[in-house]
């Protein structure tokens, strides 16, 4: 067992760090304040390969593992949490197309999506189907060579400014087995986008509802088989959860960097605030917990890479733990900054606002606990964690 990064992984880490430092960090506050979706910078990220990290090489992707991807995403998120989070959603939805899509569909969409020239949104959640995603009500009815889609999707990242959607709709019976996965061009007839949601964090990416009324698409736009949609969604989400967990880790690292620096600069009562044991203990706990969370995320990523049968449980544990720890670390870093942490002049309040949603999306942390708890109650399950 070796916990060290390989030479390649170090090189990936370096380049992602440099990109975050030069292209993301200097602009993140402005994008947040103006709710500006930085499409040009995302394209630049695409030039370097960040838009298709774990997409197969034959489809134009980088063909990296999830651990490699996590190492890269972590560095990117130190520069801008929200932009990186969007990139990871793009990566996840594109992976679904590459992994399950037909050759024709891939030929048409993968090259431009891999390079970041085009972007994709992922549509699972509905106004009435959040945590209980399998109860979704958007329908896709077969009509000759077409499917006709009706329904609405909510909380869709990038919606209105992306080029296509990977969308889950019901083609059959109730429950998860009746769901299928589709690719929809974003400007297809019958599709409408709601107003841009006003959010606490992730403000630089647009979030909208997507309404479908009699949207007709050829049957070739089905991704995978009919009824396979929920399985695709869940498999994609295992990776998606690692990605989001990673975004919390990277942001928390940036928060610790800032807090450490501040503790060595700021003086009160005639000495550096870093000389107060209360803050030393705080920094010690933040650091310890961040390192633990980072390694749980990397472990879970390794489980996906090795196709471990319990990858889903590990991903759920990593997502729950890292997003909770990530939020706490950012919040504690803000506390160390005192009143200045609350000002937008410093990045701490943005870190807190941005990572808060990671405890909610890609399955709430309560759903993560359900996944873990249910699995652990099965016979012999306690063996799997050794």
């Amino acid at each position, binding site marked *: 067992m070796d916990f060290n990064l390989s030479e*390649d992984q170090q*090189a990936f880490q*370096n*380049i992602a760090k*440099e*990109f975050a430092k030069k292209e993301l960090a200097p602009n993140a506050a402005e994008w947040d304040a103006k709710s500006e979706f930085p499409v040009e910078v995302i394209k630049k990220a695409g030039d370097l390969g*960040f838009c298709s*990290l774990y997409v197969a090489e034959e489809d134009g992707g*980088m063909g*990296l593992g999830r651990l490699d991807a996590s190492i890269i995403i972590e560095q990117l998120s130190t520069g801008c949490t929200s932009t990186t989070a969007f990139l990871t959603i793009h990566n996840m939805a594109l992976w679904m197309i590459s992994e399950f899509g037909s050759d024709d569909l891939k030929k048409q969409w993968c090259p431009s999506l891999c390079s970041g020239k085009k972007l994709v949104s992922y549509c699972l959640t509905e106004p009435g189907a959040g945590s209980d995603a399998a109860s979704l009500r958007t329908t896709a009815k077969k009509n000759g060579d077409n499917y006709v889609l009706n329904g609405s999707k909510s909380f869709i990242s990038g919606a209105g400014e992306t080029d296509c959607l990977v969308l889950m709709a019901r083609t059959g019976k109730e429950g998860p087995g009746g769901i299928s996965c589709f690719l929809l061009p974003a400007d297809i007839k019958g599709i409408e986008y709601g107003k841009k949601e006003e959010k606490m964090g992730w403000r630089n990416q647009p979030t909208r509802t997507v309404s479908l009324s009699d949207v007709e698409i050829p049957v070739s736009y089905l991704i995978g088989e009919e009824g396979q949609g929920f399985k695709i969604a869940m498999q994609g989400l295992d990776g998606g959860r690692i990605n989001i967990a990673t975004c919390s880790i990277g942001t928390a690292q940036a928060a610790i960097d800032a807090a450490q620096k501040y503790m060595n600069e700021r003086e009160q009562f005639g000495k550096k605030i870093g000389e107060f044991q209360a803050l030393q203990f705080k920094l010690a706990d933040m650091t310890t917990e961040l390192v633990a969370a980072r390694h749980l995320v990397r472990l879970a990523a390794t489980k996906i890479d090795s196709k471990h049968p319990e990858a889903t449980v590990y991903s759920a544990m990593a997502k729950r733990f890292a997003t909770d720890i990530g939020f706490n670390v950012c919040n504690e870093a803000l506390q160390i900054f005192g009143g200045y942490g609350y000002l937008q002049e410093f990045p701490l309040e943005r870190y807190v606002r941005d990572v808060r949603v990671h405890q909610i999306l890609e399955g709430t942390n309560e759903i993560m606990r359900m996944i873990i708890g249910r699995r652990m109650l099965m016979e012999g399950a306690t063996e799997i964690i050794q």
Partner: protein
Amino acid sequence: MKVLVPIKRVIDFNVKVRAKSDETGPDLTNVKMAINPFCEIAVEEAIRLKEAGTAQEVIAISIGTNACKEQLRTALALGADRAILVETEIEVEPLGVAKLLKAVVEREQPELIILGKQAIDDDSNQTGQMLASLLSYPQGTFASKIKIEKGKINVTREVDGGLQTVSLDLPAVVTTDLRLNEPRYASLPNIMKAKKKPFDTLTPEELNVDASPRIEILKVSPPPERPTGIIVNSVDELIEKLKNEAKVIS
């Protein structure tokens, strides 16, 4: 055309450099190292020459310990075709480097050698000039623009008070200034491809060069800490202090 790009491994420019407590040199333990920024500009320029069809092969070379492989890999990931490491534990000085480079130039016969004008660690600004002298090649230092045509290279140089353009016969030595170009990022596919590119390792002995140091470093110590400033109450007080205490105005 073949281009040789010598690069140096230095402390990353973002790192706050500390002197070792025994004053024998800078503290390099656990410090992030990187390609010297001027050398990175040289790599970028060579790759641009290749992309423009002017150069056919770009060779990156570094001199130092095995750790320099990391920087050579970065050069390969940026687009150099192959790399040479002249491996030595000796703390090489500009003259030693120039002699080693001369030996490699004689082997490889590049028509152009592009290197950084100076390294940000010792700020010597000597290697390029010494190399040109040893080779009896023309030199264009502090280049902010280069143009190659008909066996000549026009080098626009940043000199005090403006720009000067010199025309050199090839083969020539060019050293880069900050404004020559803005280096690209290595892309993920190129990082992966870099591993498969040819990588040779040589030693000073194989090149028949004595690169042992000629300068003895007595001590390396940090600059004195800046004393804390004071806040003056009025412009008059400021002028009074500038006149009588600092004596910078009269």
